[in-house]
């Protein structure tokens, strides 16, 4: 039975619009123009217990809005959702007790105090028994290497250190469903790795369901076998990350190292050349013709080395976001 079930979810924002300048400001005192922005246009998907799913899309695609609806922060304008058997926007205490939403650009920790003070408040807020609190805290401290941070004021922590403390605060009550919205936003590459490892281990240890948005594809490739791609508020793809390239990019990349430069000059007759540097050439070959083209190249050119690859996932996703590709889920 799915733990997160979303059916035809919709959300429209009403946005006040006006031109720049003083006269437009004055006019807007009397006449206001509003524009309806459809942030989410009927999205449907479901997640089973313990799944880790990447929720991808460019800025403004509707990812965060969807997460906020599922975390009970926003009311939808249409559609249905059930998480852990609850309708999120009813905001039942027993529901909020079992979820967490970590937003890379929002803090729940009290800025002026050490993180430990916020953890103690969370213990009371989530009714965590003392033994369980100490046990989880010790575990989080060890996994996230928090010992040197616990006594420092939150405002004096670096962005990455703060994010580690935010994660700990969000997980002290051991949520069954974890929504992560850009959890590695702005943190350095080492810290990104630590956070990824931590999310993976939390998911494995507690069987928590994780829905993650990130602009760093490395987060997604490291954590999620399944991705949901959303663009302009609509679902474009829902499936294995590995299959995404096949669906979106109807080509493969063939990299060749040829025996001589003269041979390298002849590759154009086989496929589109993307790059050429001395004897090294990168070709784009239609996916369906890849084996045929490779066979011809092997028989007609003096090859030193040859590799056939799917295009990098970053490129594939970028193509979707740029609107240069069509996907069917």
């Amino acid at each position, binding site marked *: 039975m799915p733990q997160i079930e979303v059916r035809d979810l919709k959300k429209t924002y009403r946005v006040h619009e006006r031109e720049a300048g003083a006269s437009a400001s004055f006019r807007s005192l009397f006449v206001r123009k509003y524009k309806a922005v459809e942030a989410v246009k009927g999205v449907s998907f479901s997640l089973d217990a313990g799944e880790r799913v990447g929720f991808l899309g460019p800025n403004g695609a509707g990812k965060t809005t969807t997460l906020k609806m599922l975390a009970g922060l926003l009311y939808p304008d249409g559609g249905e959702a059930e998480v852990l058997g609850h309708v999120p926007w009813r905001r039942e205490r027993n529901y909020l007790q079992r979820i967490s939403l970590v937003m890379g650009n929002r803090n729940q920790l009290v800025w002026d105090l050490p993180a430990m003070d916020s953890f103690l408040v969370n213990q009371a807020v989530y009714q965590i028994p003392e033994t369980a609190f100490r046990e989880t805290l010790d575990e989080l401290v060890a996994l996230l290497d928090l010992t040197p941070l616990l006594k420092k004021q939150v405002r004096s922590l670096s962005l990455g250190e703060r994010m580690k403390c935010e994660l700990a605060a969000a997980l002290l009550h051991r949520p069954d469903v974890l929504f992560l919205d850009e959890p590695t936003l702005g943190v350095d590459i080492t810290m990104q790795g630590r956070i990824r490892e931590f999310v993976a281990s939390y998911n494995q240890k*507690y069987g928590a369901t994780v829905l993650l948005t990130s602009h760093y594809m490395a987060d997604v490739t490291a954590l999620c076998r399944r991705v949901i791609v959303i663009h302009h508020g609509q679902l474009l793809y829902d499936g294995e990350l590995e299959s995404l390239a096949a669906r979106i990019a109807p080509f493969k990349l063939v990299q060749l190292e040829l025996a001589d430069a003269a041979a390298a000059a002849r590759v154009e007759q086989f496929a589109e050349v993307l790059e050429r540097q001395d004897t090294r050439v990168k070709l784009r070959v239609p996916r369906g013709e890849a084996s045929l083209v490779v066979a011809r190249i092997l028989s007609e050119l003096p090859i030193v080395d040859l590799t056939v690859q799917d295009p990098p996932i970053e490129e594939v996703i970028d193509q979707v976001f740029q609107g240069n590709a069509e996907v069917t889920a």
Partner: protein
Amino acid sequence: MSAPPERRWGARYFAELYRAQIRQGVAVMLQYRFAMVIWGVWGFVGPLVSLAIWNAASSARGGTIVNAANGASFQRGDFAAYFLTFMVFGHMTMSWDAFEYGWRVRTGGLSPLLLRPVDPIHADAARNVSFKLITSAILLPVWILLAWLLQPTPPESGWSLLLATPALLLAAVMRYVWQYCLAMVAFWTTRVEAIQQLYFTVDAFLGGRVAPLALLPGWLGVLAAWSPFRGMGAFPVELALGRIPAEQIAPAFLAQVGWLVVALLAYRALWRLGLRRYSAVGA
């Protein structure tokens, strides 16, 4: 995944929640020692200014001011007693959430609080109590000094002070919930601070901060008596000083309870409707 443990959301939970939140609130306050003094001092200024004005007015009229419409009379010592009591009671009932809510809604700062399985009003109320605990420590010695200097007329009996205690508690809760209702307006307009200023001014007049209600002109006095502001301000002060006839005490308590119920119902309705609006401004 194991079945979630059973949670109880009763009085014991809220007692523990408030204890933890108040402790945190006090810790935050202690980080800003200078600001704490400023806020504490701010509590004296309004009543002291009113007292100075009324003292000047009473001196100009031979030491006593009488409202011919209702026969109420105040001398210098009465004014000192009224405004010094108001200084303490006003401090104990003060609330400022509406000033911050607009910012919270505009910036999405409300979101982390909304993720908790408990209404944000509890975190805010605990913060309010923390503020009062800390700043009262500053207010008390200054108040004693002022009382020694200004020689207020003491209340006729200690019973009136005892009776004023529940009135003060009700006033504090009432003002808090009314302020919170006003804060909810932030879901509809992002400049709730302007409305708050208007509210503050009306409250100052009808709640007795500018003048004892017995000295207000007839129609304004009637309006004040029927408004919720009296119950949040002047009523506990007048009660403590023994200035309310016995037969008027119970109806005034009832009015406090009635206005509190109205405020609580209004708050629940505004909160529910406001949450639906929250998205429009940028959660």
